[in-house]
């Protein structure tokens, strides 16, 4: 039983790191510009298909394709900001929710027409790690490692670089940042790009572990919401911790209950936190 629980927890934590990194993207965008990006799931899907396309048609090793996916995701987000978000950034929330959702529909619609709804797989195996009686998939370990590295990189970026400081300033008070000479619109666009980049990299990492379809992003998106709310909207690092907590829960619960109950508990927790403590565990808004 202990072995099973440990194995489950480890598996869950590894996945949780990836979920956490994905949620960081959502969280960053929310924190900086109060926009909830409803195309988050679609961005993850684009990361998955990007990796698939590069692997299948160009023969590029998935891990080497990572920088390409990241840059692609960032540029897409940057562009998406100007098209869909810029005009409605000061409008009531419904507008930005709907505009990002519209982009989501466009991506899914185009994606289903181009790639169809059939499942895809990146057949890349790097063996497993044996820790005593517990066996962990190699792809899962590497993916979790990359996720943690990216989270650390984001932390360093936000706190130690000049651009990161600008982003935090705009998040804090946009008007004041403008007054201090920071081009807030450009900063917002860049932040949006970073947010979508994290989502697409997370998607890519997931594609190395599991098969996926054009709709897969949509099934990971609610998890990102849960994590953001758990960790606290407005604090990107909180998202990572929220992700690890969710991963641990997903790993621990099946040891005691049928696995089917995990989503019920996840979403019940989600609603409970929203009602009781909307700022989450580490949130600032």
């Amino acid at each position, binding site marked *: 039983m202990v072995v099973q629980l440990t194995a489950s927890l480890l598996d869950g934590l590894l996945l949780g790191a990836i979920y956490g990194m994905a949620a960081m993207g959502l969280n960053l965008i929310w924190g900086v510009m109060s926009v909830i990006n409803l195309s988050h799931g679609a961005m993850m899907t684009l990361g998955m298909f990007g990796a698939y396309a590069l692997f299948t048609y160009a023969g590029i090793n998935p891990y080497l394709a990572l920088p390409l996916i990241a840059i692609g995701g960032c540029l897409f987000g940057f562009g998406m900001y100007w098209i869909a978000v810029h005009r409605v950034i000061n409008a009531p929330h419904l507008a930005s929710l709907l505009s990002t959702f519209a982009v989501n529909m466009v991506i899914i619609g185009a994606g289903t027409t181009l790639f*169809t*709804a059939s499942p895809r797989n990146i057949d890349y195996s790097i063996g497993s790690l044996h820790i005593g009686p517990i066996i962990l*998939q190699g792809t899962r370990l590497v993916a979790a490692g990359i996720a943690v590295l990216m989270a650390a990189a984001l932390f360093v970026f936000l706190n130690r670089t000049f651009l990161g400081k600008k982003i935090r300033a705009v998040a804090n008070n946009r008007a004041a940042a403008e007054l201090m000479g920071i081009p807030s619109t450009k900063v917002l666009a860049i932040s949006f790009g970073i947010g979508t980049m994290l989502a697409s990299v997370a998607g890519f990492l997931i594609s190395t572990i599991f*098969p996926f379809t054009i709709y897969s992003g949509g099934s990971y998106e609610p998890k990102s919401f849960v994590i953001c709310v758990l960790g606290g909207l407005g604090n990107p690092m909180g998202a990572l911790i929220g992700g690890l907590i969710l991963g641990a829960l997903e790993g621990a619960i099946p040891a005691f209950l049928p*696995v089917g109950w995990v989503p019920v508990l996840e979403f019940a927790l989600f609603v409970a936190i929203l009602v009781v403590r909307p700022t989450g565990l580490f949130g600032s808004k």
Partner: protein
Amino acid sequence: MFCTPVIRKNCLFLLVICWVCLITAGCTQKVEQSKTGGQPVERTVIIGFTASQTGKFNVESTRQINGLNLWIEQVNSSGGIRLGDGTKIKFAARFYDDESNKDRVQELYTKLISQDKAEFLISPYSSGLADASAMIAEQYSKLIITAGAASDSTHSKGYNLVYQVYTPASRYLTGAFNMLSKLDEKAHNAVLIYEKDKFSTEVCAAANKYGAEKGFKISLFEGYDSGATDFAPFINKIPKGTDAVMGGGHFADGTTFAKQLFEKGVKAKFISLLVAPPEPKFAELGNAAVGIIGPSQWEPLAKYSSELSHLAGQGAEWFGPNISEFVAAYKNKYQEEPSYHGAGGYAAALILQKAIIAAGSLDTQKVKAELDKLNLMIFFGRIQFDTTPQMHGLQKGHEMVYIQWQKDAQGKLVKQVVWPEEAKSANALYPAH
């Protein structure tokens, strides 16, 4: 932007007009009929179905459709069927992509019946989708032959016009337990991990009961959501020293499950998964596929000697091509070995053909009467339908065989029939690893 309100106003007007036109356009229909002066009349009969060309069933469904299309091609090129009144009929398929999605199925079958005037229907692949289509067929009093659908419960709903080709789900894994007991008297515990759809749930519920009756301890009995990709929570729960892992669902999740079982180093002696192993594509898993057993509705290698020998005593009549003829024709057209999914599609249409010939008419009730009386032997195996009101249309003549992936002398992966003993082409590899 000054002109846009005018455009928008016209757009609204146009929209309303379009809407009215489109609705009324649905009323005018043309029934397909080629008229020739006097006798004999030639007619094209539309067979309607949906195909999962995309979505998670695309692998199995494509093969099922292949079988169907092969039949249509053969029947038409041999001159079609002649009815009792001299009419010559040929067949045409009319199908849409259901994307492996249930609500599309019901909408599309309604369209096939009311708009495309399909006279006979074949089900989509998979019990869940077939169940949905059966309801529609029955509502509009159209005959439907289900291929790719093994669920027993579909036939307990009071249907009259739904006929099943596959061996029912309740008999899928019972043979696996029989085989395991024969191979290893000491094997006594098993786990059942299954997809939570109609088919897999029914298979494993029946297997659970049967296994317990045979003295097995089922230490884990859990379902996963359709579309699940992460099997680690389930694999982690498999107790150490488990003799047999059984279950799975359909091709996509079955292959993922097999792959993750391998990656996590599960050392069960007997692994039997549904639907996926009999598909030739399963071999793409490489080493992860070795030793995996799968129940199959039909195999090119299976020798139906046992059934053939009982033929004489049971009054079954032979119809259609034999196994090698079918395999050759399928391979010729599609450049791959047929799996039971392809065979099932062909068999469904073949059965319909026999019933229409016997009835000498296209009238649904007359064809239905013939199906009820049917006692047939075809390349696919024996076909006979349950005609009791409680389980009308359930397949009661057909039996399963079991295959296993093994490495041949050159190290290449091949599929061997390992059960029942009378039909096997090789001995089972036990333990699997």
